[in-house]
């Protein structure tokens, strides 16, 4: 008897993706979006600690930063920028396809986004390897194979590894999130009426791209 009543209640409330504590889909959607934007605001503040450290230390030791930046390959960094911008495009297109209910397109765009993310990590691996080979390591492992390294150059590289490392962790997490959304899409969870998780995952990925848009000129283009 109880289960029949339960089934009646579910049937009256709405589609299965509409959670019981929301009256309408638009209410659920707007709450989800607000929650995501709050999270993104937190992510900005999360990175701001390192960015403020960068700003103040660079003001104190501009020559060390110029010398440190010269050790980085701006074309590899530029390639990484292009890769992430492409991934942002495909993420936005995945959301658009989800809004149109086109499941296969969503799958394709998400795969390309994830491949770009892997490509980013591969390029990053080659960059880090160069740093390791030249002894440009963070903290106590600093042993540069350079003739006239300015005094505080190790601080630049400390910030370089922290900033790109934290960003890289976010890229890896993004691969996980996008992969999970790809699986959900594959399972048929999304439709023209409900594509919110795709939207939210893409918003996270765009933030990862945003951080890199600033990291690239700050670290590579001094």
């Amino acid at each position: 008897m109880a289960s029949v009543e339960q089934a009646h209640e579910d049937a009256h409330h709405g589609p299965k993706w509409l959670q019981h504590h929301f009256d309408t889909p638009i209410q659920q959607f707007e709450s989800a979006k607000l929650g995501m934007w709050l999270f993104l605001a937190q992510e900005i503040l999360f990175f701001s600690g390192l960015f403020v450290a960068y700003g103040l230390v660079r003001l104190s030791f501009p020559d060390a930063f110029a010398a440190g930046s010269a050790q980085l390959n701006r074309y590899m960094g530029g390639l990484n920028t292009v890769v992430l911008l492409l991934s942002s495009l495909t993420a936005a297109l995945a959301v658009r396809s989800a809004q149109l209910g086109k499941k296969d397109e969503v799958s394709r765009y998400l795969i390309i986004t994830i491949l770009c993310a892997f490509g980013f990590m591969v390029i990053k691996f080659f960059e880090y390897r160069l740093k390791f080979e030249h002894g440009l390591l963070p903290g106590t492992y600093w042993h540069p194979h350079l003739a006239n390294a300015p005094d505080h150059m190790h601080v630049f590289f400390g910030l370089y590894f922290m900033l790109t490392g934290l960003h890289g962790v976010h890229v890896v997490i993004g691969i996980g999130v996008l992969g999970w959304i790809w699986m959900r899409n594959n399972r048929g969870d999304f439709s023209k009426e409900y594509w919110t998780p795709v939207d939210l995952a893409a918003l996270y990925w765009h933030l990862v791209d945003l951080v890199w848009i600033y990291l690239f000129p700050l670290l590579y283009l001094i």
Partner: protein
Amino acid sequence: MSNEHQHTHDGHPNDGAVHVHIHDVKLYLGIFFALMILTIVTVLASLVDIDGFIRPGTPHGTGGINFLLAMAIATFKATCVITWFMHLKDDTRFNALFFLGSLVFAGVFFVYTGNDTYYRQREDSIQGQYVHPSTGERAPGGLLVNGQPCMNPNTGAVVPAYCLSYYCSPTDSAEAPGTCQDSPAHEEGAEHGAHGEAAHEGGEAAAHEGAAEAAPAH
């Protein structure tokens, strides 16, 4: 449901469903190409030493114009991504308020910390003098006990920070403000204090170096 709620302000039927304006693929491609071009521009601009051209003799990478140009391009790229890829333009303004608010607070963080760091090496007329823990020499910015710096009664020098709790406890008598109990075990502290006094008279340059070294260590 009354008639005036049939449509929302932007013309969508108010049936509780989610209605979004779906953009053309061309828009996303257009934004992407703009971002590509801006990336190329910013890389090329970084190869040109504008500061060295305007103010000859500026060491490469230490001037402000190249930096500001790179930041302006980056901000424009970021605005494109936020407005169009992240759909903030089509979203409720409330979400934009939160996001921009976080930028405001990050800005407050930077300005406040910057101001504090910038004035770190200056003398503070209100607080008095503070002592470098390992050398005992005076550094600007003060620590006061009973309204005066904590002094070592043997040498008359300002007490190093790591000795403060021994030399000047808060329960000091009001009759002898700023001075406190003596101990043979702290004669080393007294010697450090004496060295500190001499070093301080040697020049402010040492204090500046000490403070500058403290900065990257943190």
